């Protein structure tokens, strides 16, 4: 009896960080999925990906007023705006489409710089407040702890998005093309679809994902001057850890990062700054061979 109680106590303080980690991880997953998609299918390293997320975040901050309707509106506007920004980016990339990846990455960085500046000019330099729907503003009791209701609902919604994404990639024709393109980048070129349209479609889809993540995740990783950088970094680490091969790998990597950023910090506060590094090193060392091979295959 006593041992059980002691055990429960030992675990107890970590339930909330662990739950936070799941929310954080799922958010990172939805955001990173766009980057993976963009990189795997169109072979573009999109350094403006974080900016697409920030568009969603700022939209949420501007439109949310505590009602459900405003959330739906923000989601629609955020997704559309970020997707449109993705198409714009694809258009800007057209003149250098035949160049190398270095040029394309540099171009997307220029766009990120300008886009971030425009966002700050439009929404102000201070990190804006985000108001979640009033019904979700309170907290619920989870295993004896109070926990933000919004985060709990977010976990469910993000899980639904992740499942939908999985089913789309696994079961639909478009998803099949995506998988084929990741496996064999040259194949898409042989299908007779113009590369410009593929680029536009891929960047629009990546933008939509990032925008949705930005709106729904605004109460978790809120809009601000550093948002774009943070999201880009987390997405990159997800790609490095999870590879491009499978959605499951991406999801696992994202959840791992979520837990490291929350549970890891709670468990080992002094080592917190190095945990992401250590995780990257550990995963890469564990599958150095396999990863190297799969990278080369890309």
């Amino acid at each position, binding site marked *: 009896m006593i041992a059980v109680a002691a055990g429960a106590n030992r675990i107890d303080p970590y339930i909330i960080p662990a739950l936070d980690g799941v929310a954080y991880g799922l958010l990172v997953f939805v955001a990173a999925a766009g980057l993976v998609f963009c990189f795997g299918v169109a072979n573009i*390293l999109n350094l403006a990906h974080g900016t697409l997320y920030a568009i969603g975040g700022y939209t949420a901050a501007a439109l949310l007023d505590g009602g459900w309707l405003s959330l739906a509106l923000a989601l629609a506007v955020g997704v559309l705006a970020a997707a449109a920004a993705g198409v714009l980016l694809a258009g800007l990339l057209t003149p250098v489409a035949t160049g190398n990846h270095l040029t394309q990455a540099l171009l997307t960085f220029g766009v990120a710089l300008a886009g971030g500046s425009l966002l700050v000019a439009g929404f102000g330099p201070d990190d804006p407040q985000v108001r979640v729907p009033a019904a979700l503003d309170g907290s619920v009791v989870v295993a004896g702890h109070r926990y933000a209701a919004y985060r709990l609902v977010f976990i469910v919604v993000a899980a639904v998005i992740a499942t939908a994404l999985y089913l789309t990639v696994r079961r639909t024709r478009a998803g099949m093309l995506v998988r084929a393109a990741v496996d064999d980048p040259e194949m898409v070129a042989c299908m007779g679809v113009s590369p410009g349209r593929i680029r536009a479609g891929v960047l629009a889809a990546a933008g939509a994902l990032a925008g949705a993540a930005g709106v729904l995740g605004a109460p978790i990783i809120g809009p601000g001057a550093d948002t774009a950088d943070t999201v880009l970094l987390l997405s990159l680490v997800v790609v490095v850890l999870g590879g491009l091969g499978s959605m499951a790998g991406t999801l696992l990597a994202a959840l791992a990062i979520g837990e490291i950023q929350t549970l890891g910090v709670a468990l080992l506060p002094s080592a917190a700054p190095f945990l992401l590094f250590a995780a990257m090193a550990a995963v890469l060392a564990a599958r150095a061979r396999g990863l190297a091979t799969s990278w080369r295959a890309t």
Partner: protein
Amino acid sequence: MMDEVIRRVRRSVAALVLVGLVVAPWVVDDYTAAILARTLALALVGVSVALLTGVAGMPTLGQTAPYAAGAYACAVVGSQISDVGVVQLVVAAGAGAVLAALTVPLVVPARGVIVLMITLAICELVVTVLGRWRSVTGGTDGLAGIAAVRPFWGLPALASDQARYLYTLVVVATLVGAVLLLLRTRVGLVLRAGRDDETRLRASGHRVPLYLSGAHILAGAIAGAAGSLLVVAQQYISPADFGFDTSALLLLGVVIGGTASVGGALVGAALVIAVRDWLFGVLPGHAPLVLGVLFVATVYLLPSGVKRVRGPRDRSQPPTVPPSRPDATPARDHATVPELRA
């Protein structure tokens, strides 16, 4: 035709910049001299970027990581152990090399745009660590009040911005000269061969991963030494000095300079950084926007600088063979190649 014009433009710009660098301390005020010294330090980081991107074929966005390691190591040594410049340089270069060596397993097996991605992640992680490791780095506030450096035992401390600038200039010139000499030896030859066709280089019996690791560590040491120069120039450092926007600016500078050319990288990086500093001075608030637009415009204007050369790679090899590094094959500019040729 276009190539010829670009070559001429590059040469005259390079000559102008070099002359300007030498006469600068006598014609500008203290503040500008300090800014110029910092620009020189960053240009040296640009040289390390060129070494990796252009010469070894590993495009990198992560050289600010060893740069930061060198700077912080130098700051800690400078305020607690020694104010001798040579000692600080060696410590900083060592710190950069160690960080680069630690990241070799992450970087060297990867190719092409994946290297960009991994190095960028490393760079961002280092900045995150700098911001959080308060006991050593001072967190986001950074480290300030670092004692003025004396170049060598027995020499007086460098009290003026002009003196610190000249110290920076001498160190940069020495290190760049050493890199140029190194590239004229067989090391440079083998690195260029590997960029052309890695599989072929292996087939001749060369230990390619060894060379790439060596290049990565050397570039880390150079960037680390540049970090020490930053400390000398600013006497203050914070994580903001090492963000990934700096990496991207340096990469752009290196591409402008011709990617494979060390001198071009030095000048290109210095120009890009100077434009950034100038923009932030005249347009506070809107500088990133203008800089971003300039970035895009520059990328559009570099048709020959970004031309891609593919090594022959398809030799009907089975799928288990790692292909050569086509993506890594960087922009190659014939205008700047002879500089590196022995």
